[in-house]
């Protein structure tokens, strides 16, 4: 090895940042070259000086205490924010309809629309289905084939029209509009409910996976808020069963589902 090569690699030699073979070559050169050896000694003295460098600074218990205080403050803010968000959502679900004239007006319009649809449906049930559904008066048009969106009707026990419901069957099935074959408002509500339930199941699974990472105080408040929403869902469900087709009850039911999805989604991605 030549002196130029040795001096070019001497920093790496000090840092032990090259291959063993190169290190052996440098070492051999240093033992036989006085100039490079002096250069090497100077580097080593530098290293010694840097190793003795004392900083006027210490890690004190106060430093950790300050960090802990900041972390605690942040946890408190996070908890308060989550709680406030949930509280506002509750106020939105249960307070706003009573307090806000604009929301109340919108709710009345929705209720009128849904009621009109229900009345139209009820009216069509009251008319002679024979006149609307064909000259023979024995069969109705089958519903459009939309698997997964229209519930299946019970099949006839015998007879040639085994796949087609009779008039009596249509009259007994409140989920179907015999005039158009389109989903009824009640049916749409049930489908929406089904979708909310699916979304809630997926989000609940995600939230459960995160539970161990969430601050226990936050988790407790979240669970309490979720229980309140579940109670509301159960009550509105019961109300809608007792008063089938009541648009207000259905509206509250869907709003409660929506809030539960929002709350779970926030917790799952927080």
């Amino acid at each position, binding site marked *: 090895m030549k002196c130029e090569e040795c001096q070019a690699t001497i920093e790496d030699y000090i840092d032990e940042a090259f291959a063993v073979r190169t290190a052996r070559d440098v070492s051999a050169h240093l033992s036989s070259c006085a100039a490079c050896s002096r250069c090497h000694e100077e580097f080593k003295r530098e290293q010694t000086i840097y190793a003795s460098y004392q900083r006027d600074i210490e890690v004190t218990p106060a430093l*950790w205490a300050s*960090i802990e205080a900041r972390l605690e403050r942040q946890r408190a803010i996070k908890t308060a924010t989550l709680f406030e968000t949930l509280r506002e959502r509750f106020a939105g679900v249960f307070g706003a309809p009573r307090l806000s004239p604009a929301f109340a007006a919108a709710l009345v319009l929705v209720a009128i629309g849904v009621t009109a649809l229900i009345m139209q449906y009820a009216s069509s049930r009251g008319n002679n289905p024979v006149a609307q559904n064909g000259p023979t008066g024995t069969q109705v048009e089958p519903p459009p084939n939309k698997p997964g969106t229209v519930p299946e009707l019970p099949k006839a026990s015998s007879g040639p029209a085994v796949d087609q419901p009779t008039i009596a069957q249509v009259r007994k099935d409140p989920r179907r509009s015999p005039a158009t074959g389109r989903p009824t408002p009640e049916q749409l509500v049930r489908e929406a409910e089904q979708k909310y339930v699916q979304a809630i199941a997926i989000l609940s699974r995600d939230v459960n996976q995160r539970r161990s990472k969430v601050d226990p105080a936050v988790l407790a408040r979240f669970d309490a808020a979720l229980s309140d929403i579940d109670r509301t869902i159960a009550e509105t469900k019961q109300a809608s069963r007792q008063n089938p087709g009541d648009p207000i009850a259905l509206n509250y039911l869907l709003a409660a589902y929506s809030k539960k999805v929002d709350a779970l989604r926030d917790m799952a991605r927080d």
Partner: protein
Amino acid sequence: MVEAISLKGQASARAGILMNSAEELTARARSGDHEAFRSIFERYARPIISFIYDMVGRRDLAEELTQETFVRAYKNLGAMREETKISTWLFGIAKNVARESLRSRIREDHRVGIDDDRVVEMSDGKLPPDRELLDRELNGVIQDALGALDEDKRVVFTLKVFQQRSYEEIAEITGSSIPKLKTDLHRARAEMRRRIRPYLGVGYEV
């Protein structure tokens, strides 16, 4: 080099947790174990505060920025890649925190010229009265010399020479290529050598 520190008043029961591997502590801290995070702090606080102090040159600021480093680390533990070493990750945060601070402050008071009185005095060959005074003076010279390096050179010099990180780790911390790091380090060493040269032959023989 990883240095374990011992804080005054630390309960002896905590000794066990300090013996855990860095990987284990990191995994536990990521899953929300507050004590594990505290152990990480105890293990890495000294190298981190030293690095920040070398970067900013002020004790009060170094303490404040160390706080900020660990608070950010805690908040972002979930985003840390599993294959990353906790020490490398912490130094990366510390580097960013120090840089942000440096860019928002004018630091002319930490820059000294080569004609600084202390250097001139030693250049005259006058020996200091005792070793302690020499050490104190040399510490000041090193600190000032560090402050005079540009940021890139200061980062690589501090991490390599004082913290003894590998080039691979420094590349991960800084995002620079290894050839650039070697070039910066070579230049940083040359600048530092120019300032500490008067001390090389005085009482520091190997």
